[in-house]
């Protein structure tokens, strides 16, 4: 079964008199445990699409199901719960909670969705911090670590609830070249180990090279889909 199914997905922004057709009817399916990238010029609708898939915004028309749930119909609180349980997020500017330590930031989603005891939480936090190589920084506050480290913590936070899907809108835009590759490689290896689907958008052609499936968006439409798994084998 596909993890994400989209049919004729459209989104129109209205600000007063002005209408912007950001997405003009997208249909696609994304399978579990894949590493997917959306590319395209600025304003092509990448962020808009990721917001819809992430249940952060509602489509104007069309259908979108994530993990079997029709996300367009979810209310505010249900939407939050759905996101907490099923989707991890990595943001362009990291968005860690400044008053919480590295370990507490990673633990946060578990506490808010609240489904496991303290011991299990600790084990999961430790294993993820280990996976992203941040164990020795666990007591630091976000203000005390570098951008690349922050994004590694953010990746750990996105994965703590063991979601089937992680969304990352330009996760490397604020990182230098080497760090960007490190973060992408980290996500890729976690995808292998945890069978998580990663969906990310990027401008950076070198980063795109790491994706298994690449969708190209132009002016609100999918203009190309490239599956590199076949060609690489």
């Amino acid at each position, binding site marked *: 079964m596909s993890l994400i199914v989209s049919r004729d997905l459209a989104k129109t922004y209205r600000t007063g008199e002005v209408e912007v057709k950001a997405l003009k009817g997208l249909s696609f399916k994304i399978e579990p445990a894949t590493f997917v990238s959306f590319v395209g010029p600025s304003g092509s609708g990448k962020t808009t699409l990721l*917001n819809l898939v*992430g249940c*952060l*915004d509602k489509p104007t028309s069309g259908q979108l199901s994530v993990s079997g749930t029709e996300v367009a119909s979810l209310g*505010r*609180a249900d939407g*939050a*719960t759905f*996101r*907490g*349980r099923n989707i*991890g*997020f990595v*943001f362009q500017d990291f*968005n860690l*909670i*400044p*008053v*919480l330590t590295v370990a*507490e930031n990673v633990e*946060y*989603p578990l*506490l*808010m*969705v609240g489904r496991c005891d303290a011991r299990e939480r600790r084990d999961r936090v430790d294993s993820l911090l280990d996976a992203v190589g941040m164990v020795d920084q666990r007591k630091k506050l976000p203000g005390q670590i570098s951008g690349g480290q922050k994004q590694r913590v953010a990746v750990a*936070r*996105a994965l703590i*609830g063991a979601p089937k899907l992680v969304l990352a809108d330009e996760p490397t835009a604020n990182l230098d070249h080497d760090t960007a590759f490190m973060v992408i490689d980290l996500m890729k290896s976690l995808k292998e180990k945890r069978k998580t689907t990663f969906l990310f958008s990027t401008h950076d052609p070198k980063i795109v090279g790491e994706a298994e499936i690449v969708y190209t968006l132009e002016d609100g439409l999918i203009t190309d889909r490239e599956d590199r798994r076949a060609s690489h084998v």
Partner: protein
Amino acid sequence: MSNIVKIALRNLLRYKRRTLLTSLLIMIGVVAVLLFSSITGAFKSLMIGQITDSMLGHLQVHKRGYVASIDNLPLHMNLGPQDMETIEEALDSLEEVEAYSARIKFGGMFSNFEETTNVRLNGVNPAQEILAAPLLPKRVLQGDTGDTLLSPGDILVPELLAKGMDVKPGDTVVIVATNQDGSVNAKTFTVRGVLEGITGPGGRDGYIHIKDAQEILRIQKQEVNEYAVRLKSAGALEKVEAALAKAIGGELNKQGAPKYEIHTWEKLSPFYNIARMIDVMTLFIKLMLIAIVLVSVMNVMIMAVFERVKEIGTIAAIGTRPGQILSLFLFEGISLGILGSAMGTLISLAAILTLKIHPISYDFGRQKGLLLSPALDPAEIIVVSLLVILISVLASLQPAYRASRMEPVTAMRHI
């Protein structure tokens, strides 16, 4: 939940100076309310105690119409033996009545053989009077009154009169009075003591023995014109008033109107209005406290939400439900209230403790060196703290609600 508490508290710590300033402001308000109400409370109960225990008693019973004309101390509204029996029987039957004193009040002339002036006198049974007005013996400034206070032939002269007429204990003076029928009579007295004047009705009256009063006024039978009643506890005032009204209020005179009237000290003393005014002032100070808490907490919370829009968007995006975001900010506001009222309570307790060690001495009217010993009523602390916390909740409600309704996408775009 504990996560919400943790984040709320850390955010308060993150803006230490602002948190401190706000809670200091709340603290000042709490201290103002607690100190004001405890000091004025002490002042009130001291003054009320002075009034009821040294002069008025808690309640008084007279012939109907007496209090309205009390300024000219009429003698035609006396209570006869029949009345006295009725009233005393009623008073004796009431559990809460500690003691009562029957008095004959009258006006006369006071002469030191050189000069003559007016004097207002109470003819009392000293044993009864001491029980009904236990502070009376303490008002004796000069002279030795012993346990008996005064015997037939003795007079206690009010301070100002003694000064003006230049009399001292042991001196002989003459009292001249006109009785009910208009005939004049005189009697010599020995000054037994000089009485400190107090504020309020009857605070500048002299005292003689009731037998002497009856002799001067040529009263043959038993007759008095006032009963001063002391209760076991001031709190029983209304209850006793009602019970007494029930017992003797049904007695009617020939015109069919009630024979007797009952007055509580509140109706007899102008201090009652001062006490009421103090209560009103306490209320106003409380209103100011409410305004301080409301404005300062709301201000801080609006700022807190505004500064953290992006953070709110983030936590909403990663699965924090609107209710959890609401509680996060509510808890932050409540913590400010709790911190402020806790500090305020501590400071107030310390101040009250200091006042216990060094009591405030003050003068009220002619009374000098009254000592105030304020105390903090735990109920008052609880009420004020709960009020502060409640207002903090109200003040945080709107900002917290706004935070909980933010759209994650819009909020995260905020810089």
